[in-house]
């Protein structure tokens, strides 16, 4: 009995809501911003540079977060469900993301920003940190520009103009990195870093990186690995060791103490810092890294 009454009430209500929904959709909304979700902070910077004010941007893993081992929250699922584009790095970096997109029931287009870069392997696994070479970053930006233009054709011209301006800045950055590395004597272009994130940088700019940890920040080194690194540093006279912004620095300090190599500050690899940090944008991050490298490797 009670059931029938509520049904009678509910039906008109639903109809009314439905009608309102249809009517609402017909009204043209001025300047609707494209909702875009990115997986982590470096992609956020790229999308911001290309999309400008036309995109409603949110990053799943924020500044200083570790994108390798993230656990999504319900708010993330909500973000993803409402997004038109989900921009990811790909190459296995965001292993947790496909499940999130699926469980959020999202109809967003997934854009793999790294599509089209030539992949590099380290230790038999694909290194996902493609953006560490500025030439690759330009491919990322190109992919993001194309995806935004396809998702929001009305603003395509603005996206193309923004991207062209940013790509020119990246060209200048690439030259700057090459010139700076060229000033380091070739025999000293070798460093130790805590995390295999720099194979693209190494390949593009000719600096050798040696690492005690695996591709992901999760794995733990064996005594054999550490001993091998110490032997190598001693044998090849490697001038500097570097710490990273999201792992225990004591191991690298020990290696430095045991070999007499210099501790070279922080290289940012997976995440940007906040506004007040050393690397709030991609360009400042690359500049910071190259400055840290040169000051440690110069005599």
């Amino acid at each position, binding site marked *: 009995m009670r059931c029938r009454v509520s049904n009678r009430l509910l039906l008109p209500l639903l109809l009314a809501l439905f009608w309102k929904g249809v009517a609402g959709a017909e009204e043209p909304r001025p300047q609707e911003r494209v909702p875009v979700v990115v997986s982590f902070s470096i992609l956020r910077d790229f999308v911001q540079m290309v999309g400008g004010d036309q995109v409603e941007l949110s990053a799943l893993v924020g500044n200083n977060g570790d994108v390798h081992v993230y656990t999504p929250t319900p708010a993330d699922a909500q973000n993803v469900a409402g997004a038109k584009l989900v921009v990811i790095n790909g190459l296995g970096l965001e292993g947790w993301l496909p499940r999130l997109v699926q469980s959020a029931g999202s109809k967003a287009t997934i854009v793999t920003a790294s599509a089209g870069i030539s992949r590099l392997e380290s230790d038999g696994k694909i290194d996902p940190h493609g953006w560490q070479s500025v030439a690759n970053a330009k491919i990322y930006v190109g992919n993001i520009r194309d995806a935004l233009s396809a998702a929001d054709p009305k603003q395509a011209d603005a996206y193309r103009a923004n991207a062209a301006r940013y790509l020119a800045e990246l060209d200048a950055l690439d030259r700057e990195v090459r010139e700076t590395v060229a000033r380091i004597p070739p025999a000293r272009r070798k460093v130790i870093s805590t995390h295999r994130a720099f194979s693209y940088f190494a390949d593009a700019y000719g600096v050798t990186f040696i690492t005690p940890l695996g591709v992901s920040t999760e794995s733990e080194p*064996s005594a054999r690995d550490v001993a091998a690194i110490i032997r190598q540093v001693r044998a090849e006279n490697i001038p500097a060791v570097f710490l990273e912004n999201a792992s225990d620095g004591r191991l690298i300090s020990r290696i430095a103490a045991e070999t007499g190599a210099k501790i070279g500050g922080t290289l940012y690899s997976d995440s940007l810092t906040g506004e007040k940090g050393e690397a709030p944008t991609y360009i400042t991050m690359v500049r910071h890294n190259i400055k840290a490298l040169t000051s440690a490797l110069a005599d």
Partner: protein
Amino acid sequence: MIYDALIAPFLDFEFMRRALVAICALALGAAPIGVFLMLRRMSLVGDAMAHAILPGAAVGFLLSGLNLIAMTIGGLVAGFAVALLAGLVSRATELKEDASLATFYLVSLALGVTIVSLKGTNIDLLHVLFGDILGMDDSTLLVIAINATVTLLVMALIFRPLVIESVDPLFLRAVSRSGAIAHLGFLALVVINLVNGFHALGTLLAVGLMILPAAIARFWSRDLSLMIAIAVTSGMLSGYAGLVLSFQTRVPSGPAIILVAAIIYLASILFGRVGGILWRLFPGRHLEA
């Protein structure tokens, strides 16, 4: 050959010597605690505590960023709060100690996760907090050494009441008031050892070197002092053999040490003089021997 395999790694590399010293100091403090935990049927407390310290570490992180000292102090405070509250509840009410500890650690874990996600960062705080046996710096070694010293001294002070309290708490309550002091002092030692162990060596080693040697010792003696001595020795032995294993193969050091301890444990299950399987199967023959 044998020299190259067993001794040379420690002569050639300082990090190996430091790791060995750290393991020995850790075994000195942790193994006796493990024996008492086993007596009190609280062997799983270590794992619970690893989660209980999270809110403290998170508050430390909120107040001063990624600062290891602040986060460790926060972890200590949270660990103390959980252990002492659990201890007090089990003394004052009918609830057994393991159940009240489980309750408090779950509350603590939930609080910790809440605080971390309210802050909106997603650094794995526990991952940052937990150290690695191969990366021993001076201050970490010093902390482990002080920790072992304090633990042994306090254990010596509270040894008698703690033994009686562990075996027959009602009797001790009837004849003396020192039970409460011994009980809470012991819980404090558990927390200090675990948090320092996590910070210096990681969860696996800190908890593993507390529990496995105690379980091994259980198969070789009924005498408490002897059990403690066996536990300390087998902890140190596992540490040494595990480091050699990690040096010769590519097994990470923490797991290697625990795996060696596990092998000793399996051997003890089979051959242990007290309750080992073989001695149970052939009791007559061994009684003659």
